[in-house]
Each structure stands twice: as structure tokens, then as C-alpha cells.
């Protein structure tokens, strides 16, 4: 009874919020630029510079990747750091503290249907899926500047491939586990690789993350500078991939450690 009453209260509050904010938002919306208009300040000032110059300056056909990895590469560095930090915090909060008591291991051959996460069909199909996911992940990584995708998605896909391998069969078999600490170290190394990529130009007279001054090319011709931008973007994407992969593996390993699927 009491629960029903509180739910009614909740619903009433919800309706009030929707109506109140709706009426207020109609007024606010009128001041915001009309959707689809190309001449608003948001669409015409800095954005046009990116669109017209990105390919020329960075040789990255995906303009979003160009902005993300080159023009605003510093943001992306700290975005990677945020992910690493979240893995670190998860680890600090959960690792080694009052684990769930593991159920005694039953004779697994007898109830293999209940023991595994998936069952036989998943067990058979994942063997086909995992290599494809891996290949797709690597494709997304190296193709990120031409088509959609980039380091983050690639890292997540590779981590997903590992996780399928981890979740579906190995609760029965217990093989192929990356330790939590190892995963965390992999993640930190990925982020550190990003930082190193940023520091290298500083030895060559450039600013932090200034890919045009990467100490790889010898000539200062325009073509080689564009190639240096490509190299720089690729390097940081690799760093992001490694970091994201490590982070997702670390978090899920920590969490899986506390979970029983034997119910």
C-alpha cells in the first residue's frame, strides 16, 4: 500500500516537472538558433575553419577525427585519463575488499547448462564471432581518419572480444585470464604512450602535441608535414586503443571477480 502511494506521488511530481519545464522551455527554445540554419554563429565561425582546412592541414578525411585528435588533441588526452582514472577508482574501491564467497565448485560436467553464462549455442558461435570482432576493431583503429571510428571504438571492440572469450566459456574452464593489475598497467602505458607522442615534438622545437614538429621527417616540405600529422594521429589513436582496452578489461575483471553466474 505504502509503495503504491509513494509511486503515485512520484508520478504526480513527474507530470508537474514535465509541464513546468515544458512551458518554460518553449520560451527558452525561441531564443536558441533555429535548427538547420547554416548562418548561426555556432555553425559559421570556428566550425567553418575546421571544415575547409582539416583535410589540407591534417590529411584526415574524417573531420571529426581531425578535430578530436589534432586540433583539440589535448582534450582527448585527458578524456583518456578520465577513463584510466575510472578504472583506477573502481580498482581502489572494490579490489580485494570483502569478496563474495565463491560457491563450492560443483561437478561441472553434470550441470553445464546452468554453469555457463551462455550455453552450448553461444559457446559454439562465439568462436566464430571473436576473430571477426578483433579484425573489425583493428580496421576501425587504422581506418579511423578516413571513415568513422577511432581509438576509443577500436579499444572497446577489442576489449569486447576478450570479454566474450572470458565470460562465455571460461567460467567453466578458467583459462586466459588477464590479471586486474596487469590490465591497469596496460591502460596506464597506453595513456603514457599518448603523452610521449605529445612530448616528442618538444625536443624538436615545437609545442606539446604539435605533430608538425614530430622528429621523424627530415625535410620541411609541405607534404612531409602532412604525413607527420597522419603519423601523430595514428600514434595517439594507438595509445587511446591500448588504454581503453586495458580500462574495460580491468573494470570488468574486478567486477566479475565478485559475481557468480551460478544461480
Amino acid at each position: 500500500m505504502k509503495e503504491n502511494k509513494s509511486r503515485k506521488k512520484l508520478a504526480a511530481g513527474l507530470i508537474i516537472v514535465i509541464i513546468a519545464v515544458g512551458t518554460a522551455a518553449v520560451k527558452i527554445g525561441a531564443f536558441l538558433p533555429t535548427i538547420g540554419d547554416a548562418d548561426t554563429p555556432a555553425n559559421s565561425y570556428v566550425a567553418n575553419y575546421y571544415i575547409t582546412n582539416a583535410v589540407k592541414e591534417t590529411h584526415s578525411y574524417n573531420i571529426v577525427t581531425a578535430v578530436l585528435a589534432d586540433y583539440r588533441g589535448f582534450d582527448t588526452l585527458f578524456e583518456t585519463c578520465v577513463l584510466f582514472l575510472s578504472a583506477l577508482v573502481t580498482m581502489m574501491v572494490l579490489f580485494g575488499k570483502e569478496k563474495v564467497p565463491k560457491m563450492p565448485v560443483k561437478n561441472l560436467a553434470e550441470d553445464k547448462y546452468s554453469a555457463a553464462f551462455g550455453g552450448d549455442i553461444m559457446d559454439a558461435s562465439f568462436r566464430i564471432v571473436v576473430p571477426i570482432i578483433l579484425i573489425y576493431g583493428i580496421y576501425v583503429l587504422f581506418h579511423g581518419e578516413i571513415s568513422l571510428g577511432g581509438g576509443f571504438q577500436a579499444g572497446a571492440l577489442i576489449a569486447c572480444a576478450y570479454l566474450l572469450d572470458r565470460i562465455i566459456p571460461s567460467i567453466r574452464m578458467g583459462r586466459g585470464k588477464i590479471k586486474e593489475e596487469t590490465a591497469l598497467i596496460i591502460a596506464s602505458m597506453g595513456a603514457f604512450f599518448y603523452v610521449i607522442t605529445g612530448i616528442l615534438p618538444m625536443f624538436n622545437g615545437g609545442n606539446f602535441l604539435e605533430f608538425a614538429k614530430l622528429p621523424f621527417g627530415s625535410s620541411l616540405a609541405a607534404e612531409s608535414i602532412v604525413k607527420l600529422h597522419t603519423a601523430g594521429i595514428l600514434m595517439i589513436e594507438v595509445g587511446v586503443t591500448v588504454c581503453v582496452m586495458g580500462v574495460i578489461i580491468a573494470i570488468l575483471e574486478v567486477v566479475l571477480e565478485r559475481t557468480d553466474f551460478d544461480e
Partner: protein
Amino acid sequence: MPILLLEGLLLIAMIAIAAAIILGKKLLAATVIYCGFSLIAMLLYTVVGAADVAFTEAVIGTISTVYFIIAIKSIKGKRADDERK
């Protein structure tokens, strides 16, 4: 330009899902609906033209739903343990 109409419909669906999650009773059901929410969000990003963001949202939606389900599993599992004792 019927795209805006589509956007509006998707947004209304998202508001409905948000209300359902807030008012719903069962946690697991809320998680499954939340998965639908991130699917609609992905569609919305695609409609708007942000294909990169949609790709990321698809990946993140999957991962965060897995997080939520594992968390519920671990929380539920322990409660079952407590009751057994």
C-alpha cells in the same frame, strides 16, 4: 524535411522510457529498458548526422548495459545468499 519529425518522435519515446524507468518496480526490467534508451539515443545521433557519436554510443550503450546487468547480478546474488543463511 521530415527528419525533425522523426527526431521529435524519438525524443518523446526517450522521455517515455525515462518516465518508465523512474516509475517502474523491477530493477532488471529498468536495466533492459535502459538498453532500449541507449539504442534510441544512438538512432537519434545518427538522424542528427553525428555518425561518430552514434558509433561511440552504440559501443558505450553495450558496455554500460553489461556493467549494469553484472552489477545487478552481483547485488542480487548476495541478497539470495543472505536469505539462504
